[in-house]
């Protein structure tokens, strides 16, 4: 009988074959606890326009008006009424005539002709803004709490598409430190394959510069010793007096997993994890901090055959994009962190001929506003820590409320249009989406569509279907595809 693992080898196999094989495996081999693919015969899987996906995650709530959706600019001046302020950065031109973005993002502006920019991404009003809850929603498509553990979209791709290169884990998560984070448990809740099982879970690399260590023998161990140790294990297995029981599928899973792990740890492809192998000038281009290095790592991993890579600016409560005060100053720094690496990533992928088949998505759990918490009319509690009616000092200047009425998503490659603007928000407060709102479900459906996964695809859990987009209802935004 074929193991699931045999089926995972992407190699010469077409996706269709892979899905077919999965279905067969579901029907025949599911003595274990793997959830089954449901009704797969009835769901038509779209033709993929991308093979890999990179999610650039602006954790903490990236303010649209200060980044990709600039509005009327009011410069810093003591005494300005905060109600008058919408954007704290002036707008600049981009490579596309009708698209302007915020000052500080000049390099992204220069590659806008490769991008599809959505300005009408909307989030539900959950009554009280909690980052981890919206992040859970964005990463899984389901608003928590959910009665079964919902998988991260990367885990769905790992489960449904498998790895592109059998030695590279299909779902890699870069830049998010989970342990010791103020909301670590909440982050763990969606940084997971959920009910799909940890085989499809994230390979976490919180520090890009240390990624190589994650695929190297443990510290202080030579490669020779590492393989000797594994050889000893193999010998023990061969001579085990319990050998007759080793055909058990449980034990097979152990040996297979150990083989997978050692294949990665012994493979040449693991060089992809090692940023030190990148030419110095390239490293410098990306080196604006952990996020920049993460972008470089993502590029290397996709080149080596990763399926889904998330790179985050890292969510830490009240840090980075989570500006409850001093928003302008913080965002200025963040512009510097993301502008170069994001643009360079696109240029590098393009130069290597990978952009056409790699979908890059830059997104955040919601936007921010100077005044409005949630959406207009929401009874969400104001959480700004710099409350004032008029700007008295720099810390008052910035977008300090969580805004769910309209945010921006930037997409590149993987079949989406180039130099294309979709949706808009109102020019004046409330800056809610006024055209073509795109929900999380629909955005996911769009991403899955590009990856060749129907939004109606479902797996059986607890004898009921669980869909890749909520209730199978996500609708791809077809206008975004070229």
């Amino acid at each position, binding site marked *: 009988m074929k193991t699931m693992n045999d089926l995972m080898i992407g190699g010469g196999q077409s996706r269709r074959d892979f899905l077919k094989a999965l279905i067969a495996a579901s029907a025949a081999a599911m*003595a274990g*606890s*793997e959830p089954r693919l449901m009704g797969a015969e009835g769901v038509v899987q779209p033709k993929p326009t991308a093979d890999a996906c990179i999610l650039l995650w602006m954790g903490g709530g990236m303010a649209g008006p200060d980044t990709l959706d600039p509005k009327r600019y009011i410069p810093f001046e003591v005494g300005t009424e905060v109600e008058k302020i919408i954007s704290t950065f002036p707008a600049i031109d981009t490579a596309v005539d009708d698209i302007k973005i915020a000052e500080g993002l000049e390099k992204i502006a220069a590659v806008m002709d490769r991008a599809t920019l959505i300005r009408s991404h909307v989030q539900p009003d*959950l*009554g*009280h803004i*909690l980052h981890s*809850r919206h992040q859970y929603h964005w990463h899984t498509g389901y*608003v*928590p*709490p*959910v*009665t*079964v*553990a919902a998988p991260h979209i990367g885990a769905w791709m790992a489960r449904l598409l498998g790895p592109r290169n059998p030695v590279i*884990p299909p779902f890699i998560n870069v830049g998010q430190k*989970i*342990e010791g984070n103020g*909301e670590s*448990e909440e982050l*763990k*809740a969606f940084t*997971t394959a959920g009910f799909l*099982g*940890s*085989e499809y*879970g994230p*390979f976490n690399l919180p520090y890009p510069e240390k990624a190589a260590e*994650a695929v*190297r023998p*443990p510290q*202080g161990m030579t490669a020779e*010793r590492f393989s*000797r*140790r594994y050889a*000893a294990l193999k*010998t*023990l*297995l061969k*001579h*085990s007096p319990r050998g007759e*029981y080793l*055909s*058990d*599928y449980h*034990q097979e*899973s*152990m*040996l*297979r*997993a*150990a083989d*997978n*792990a*050692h294949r*990665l740890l012994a493979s040449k492809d693991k060089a992809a994890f090692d940023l030190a192998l990148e030419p110095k000038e390239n490293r410098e281009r990306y080196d604006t901090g952990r996020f920049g290095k993460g972008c470089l790592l993502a590029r290397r991993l996709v080149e080596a055959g990763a399926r889904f890579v998330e790179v985050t600016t890292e969510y830490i409560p009240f840090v980075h994009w989570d500006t409850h005060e001093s928003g302008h100053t913080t965002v200025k720094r963040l512009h510097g962190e993301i502008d170069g690496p994001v643009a360079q990533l696109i240029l590098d992928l393009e130069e290597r001929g990978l952009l056409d088949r790699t979908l890059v998505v830059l997104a955040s759990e919601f936007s921010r506003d100077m005044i409005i918490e949630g959406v207009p009319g929401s009874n*969400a509690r104001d959480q700004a820590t710099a409350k004032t009616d008029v700007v008295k000092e720099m810390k008052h200047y910035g977008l300090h409320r969580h805004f769910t009425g309209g945010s921006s998503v930037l997409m590149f490659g993987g079949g989406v249009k180039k130099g294309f603007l979709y949706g808009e928000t109102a020019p004046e407060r409330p800056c809610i989406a006024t055209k073509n709102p795109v929900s999380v479900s629909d955005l996911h459906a769009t991403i899955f569509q590009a990856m060749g996964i129907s939004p109606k695809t479902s797996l059986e859990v*607890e*004898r*009921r279907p669980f869909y890749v987009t909520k209730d199978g209802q996500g609708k791809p935004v077809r206008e975004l595809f070229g």
Partner: protein
Amino acid sequence: MKLICWLNLWVVAVPLAWGAEVDFVHDVAPVLKKHCVECHGGDKSEGGFSMNTRASLLDAEAAVPGKSGKSEMILRLRSDDPDEQMPPPKKDRLSGKEIAVLERWIDSGLEWEPGFSFSSGGYEPPLKPRRPELPPVVDGRENAVDRILDAYLKGEKLRFPTPVSDREFARRLYLDVIGLPPPPEELTAFLGKKGGERRGRLVKQVLSRDQAYAEHWMTFWNDLLRNAYSGTGFIDGGRKQITGWLYQSLMENKSFDQFTSQLISPTGDSEGFIRGIKWRGDVNASQSRALQFAQGVSQVFLGINMKCASCHDSFIDRWTLKEAYGLASIVSKKELELTRCDKPTGAKAAVGWIFPELGNVDPAADQPERLRQLAALMTHQDNGRFTRTIVNRLWRQLMGRGIVHPVDAMHTRPWSEDLLDYLACYLVDQKYDLKKVMELILTSDAYRGRGTKLTQRPDDYRFEGPLMRRMTAEQFLDAIWSITGTWPKPDSRAFKKDGRQQGGQLEAVLKAHGENAEWGDRPVRAVFTPLNGLQASLGRPNREQVVTERPDLMTTLEAIHLANGPTLAGTLAAAGTNLLEQWKGKPGEMIDWLFLSALSREPTRREREALTELTGAEPTRETVEDLLWAVFMLPEFQYVN
């Protein structure tokens, strides 16, 4: 798919003469089956409408008993509007006679076969306890479990499983009861014993280690009751630990009826369970705390999945939205409105217990009293569903697979009703003492049976012996730490709850022992350590959902963690130093001792050779580390088999 075969026997509905009685099974069900159930039955619920049960038909207001003329389904069956008509265009319409059958069925009161559903193979488990007569003793196997299994296996034409050696038995027993492999000296002492009573005595002795038992079973109960020391919900005081109460209850082996009553109708220390998890902000109606209560109580104590029914009438079993809200209303201090798929229906929910045969909860009583009444109904002597559910869970923990499988779908037919029913009665006979049920199972010859492979299709499962089980993350780490003397230092947060009431788990343990003393050098079992990357990869869950089975397969990410993760590497480095010191100049004895500690057996000649080659004649810390790694990676180590 037994149901379909059963339905096929009916072949064609016999046309009815006017005035004749309409019979659900013979007249109505075939028509529904032929025209409707494909889209509105089983797993399917086109348009959100399922007719799996009478309740689901009624709840969707598809039919009004006694009034076919006012029944939506009839109007649609007779309609010619392509947007309205049923079956939809392109499908065959019903004949006049078929519609007439349904009309008369509705007019005569919508009779339904009791317990029948289009979804579940038609099996409706009994509610009341049943005491099966024990079959005669075969081959001297007097244990009740064995007597039932002997008869079962004979019926299935299967042989009684061959017993494992005493060594294997001891390892299995220790890991199952206290979560640790037997230390070499205890194992050797046991192996030196003769006499037929030796195993029974060991079972009693291991079961009597109250602290170690409690520490091991905390894992199971934490998963089941969603008890976490930190996590989602604590941020706003929206969650409460039951750590101290749980540990204490396991320590004193609280009777299960009392244990359950204290969870359902709680005191301050045990109220975390029914409080559930409150998320900040608005949540889907089906995830309000009251509905979480309905789901938790149903799943944990009755093996009922009320998750579907919390949103709409279940398509997978017989439970309805009203029943889910009935349970939720028991705990809710304010009246609840029935909300279907997050849309308010305008109808008010009524307090109600789901097995009214046993009695009901007084809607007029105040909430604490309602909870007391619910606890009494749950632990009612005639509530066989309650006792069957817990003994099935224990059987799953000790034997690898439930008598009913999956353990949370207790409406599934058990592979041996006699065994399930006997154990359930036995629990009551033993005054709800869980350890007594465990003892009965652990002293059976069946428990000693050679581990079997699960190669069969799940639908065809037959008991042939215990199944191998993977160690939990906690067992795996505890085993390594205990063997190598590398217990972790206690986390300081474990001694004091923080402002959000997180942590403090070891303080709770000290308190349960009536001690204010320092923790000192006492081992800290993995169950009391925070969830980290290694444990998560080994299958320790976030406790936001009820978890009743840990993953039984090893994953690649886990193997990477085990091959090069800093957590395990750090432990092995410390262990290498310890062992090198302990076995200076005696590498051969070290290998023998390690095998005995980890696998409860001596190495074979070839194994000893292979490992001696690895360590060399003069082991270094590094080669000892490698030796430990190779042994701890063996499936034989990582499985309870």
